[in-house]
């Protein structure tokens, strides 16, 4: 029973060990993933509605305000 998973793990371990060009590529992939998910996502590209509002109904309310604001008396005209 245990043979199969062990074989599979061995397949991956051996594969990674015998890589040459692959090692460089994995480094690139890892650095890229860190930049994308840690640096870019956390510090520069937050999800605007998720960080600003707590609930879906608040988010819906906000978007509804934006798409109807042009006609709300006294409302800020966001649309150039």
């Amino acid at each position, binding site marked *: 029973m245990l043979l199969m998973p062990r074989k599979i793990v061995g397949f991956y371990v051996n594969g990674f060990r015998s890589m040459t060009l692959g090692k460089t590529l994995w480094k690139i*992939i890892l650095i890229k993933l860190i930049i994308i998910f840690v640096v870019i996502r956390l510090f520069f590209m937050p*999800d*605007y509605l998720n960080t600003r509002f707590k609930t879906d109904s608040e988010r819906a309310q906000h978007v509804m305000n934006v798409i109807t604001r*042009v006609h709300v008396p006294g409302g800020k005209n966001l649309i150039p």
Partner: protein
Amino acid sequence: MLEQTGLELVNWARAQFALTAMFHWIFVPLTLGLSFLCAFFESIYVKTGKEEWRRLTRFWMRLFGINFAIGVATGIILEFEFGTNWSNYSWMVGDIFGAPLAIEGLVAFFLEATFFAVMFFGWDRVSKGFHLFSTWMVAIGSNLSALWILVANGWMQFPTGMAFNPDKARFEMQNFWDVLFSPVAVSKFTHTTSSGFLLGSLFVISVSSWYLLKGRHKDMAKKSIVVASVFGLLSALFVGFTGDEAAYTDAQKQPMKLAAFEGLWKGQENAGLVALGVLNPDKRPGDDKDPFIFEIRVPGLLSLLANRSPGSFVPGIDDLVYGNSAQGVMGADEKIKRGKVAIQQLAAYKKAQQLGDQVAAETALQKFNDYKAYLGFGYLDSPEQAVPPVGITFYSFHAMVALGTLFILIFFIFLVLTMKDRIEGQRALLLLGVLSLFLGFIASEAGWVVAEVGRQPWAIQDLLPVTVARTDINVGSVKTTFFMFLVTFTVLFIAEVGIMLKQIQIGPEGK
């Protein structure tokens, strides 16, 4: 002042999206095309059992692996941009596209973790048949993982199968199959993937031509050229066929885009197709200036291609802006009036809901439903704003089509001369072969420019302009991330080219 900032913001957000999408689109079509070419090469190896086909397969697989590794996950940045810069749009469509995209991502991950691993680690460790099966699964899986994002793009161009729910300010799925099989989604998926096959084939031709010019790995280069030119030729013909289908669906669903990429200002019956032309840059909607400085036209062909009916009327930009009642074309001027009613009724519905006045809410909702097809026009200030940048769209379209025709010729000539074993001495042709990859990228990027610039000002066709889809954030932060992405992608691109060139230099013998 406020208007200026809004425009600046939306333009930076658009520039950022264009930048990242175009960089992302360097890696994707190569993955789509090379994955299938690897599967073809390996199938020949398994069928013939000849060692040279195995070496050849492993060589192209290595280049495929480099491209895949460097390109993988670059598309995620586009998704972040939706959430940060285009949050109103994201919210409005998130319900529909969020889940399928997440499932697709998950399936792709497991597919890659298993079959990619076999493809790269499995030589000599699994049976030939299973290895080949894995290579095919990678090819099919990679192409299928482009499906939903293209369906989503198709929906933005032709929003069908969904209804707007004013209580949630969201579009909700009404009919999944209408979304999946909308004519725009079908032509988009087929045209885009086949253009990737074409590009992958040009890549193989380009590298092989370089080897032949250098007198290296001649046998491998010729074998590769034969397979790539057959696949390339079939793909290029299919690209032409699906491109015609895309233009037809544009004529039906996005006539302004068609008018822009054809430079058609005044609608005509029996309209001609501009094969080649230089636009008059001073031409504006509604004026009487000549639209072209110079043009070569094929009489009647546009009517035939746009409506599949010879002699039929094709509306021009002016008809679509100011209307043409004789031909039953409603102009953007009238649509703006109706769109403003839709917005007013939506606001009235919201207010009535807040006050708990159900009767008033119901009345407003009914009126909104009567006018909702024009909702997006209500946000425009003038009908001329419904016109996309004509020059960029026109030249991009004509470059794509002209190059598409050239590629058919290139594949055909390469195939014939290689089959006759006369390709080696053809230096000029081989140089063109090397260059053809860059032309392929130009055609491919130009295609997206036609599709996306040609549908401005819309984020969702006729329903949501980019000026409303965007988030109200600081323009400075969008500028900062624009330059960050420029640097990140440039570094990745340099890595891609550098590692590729090194491996090409090493050739099929290397590790």
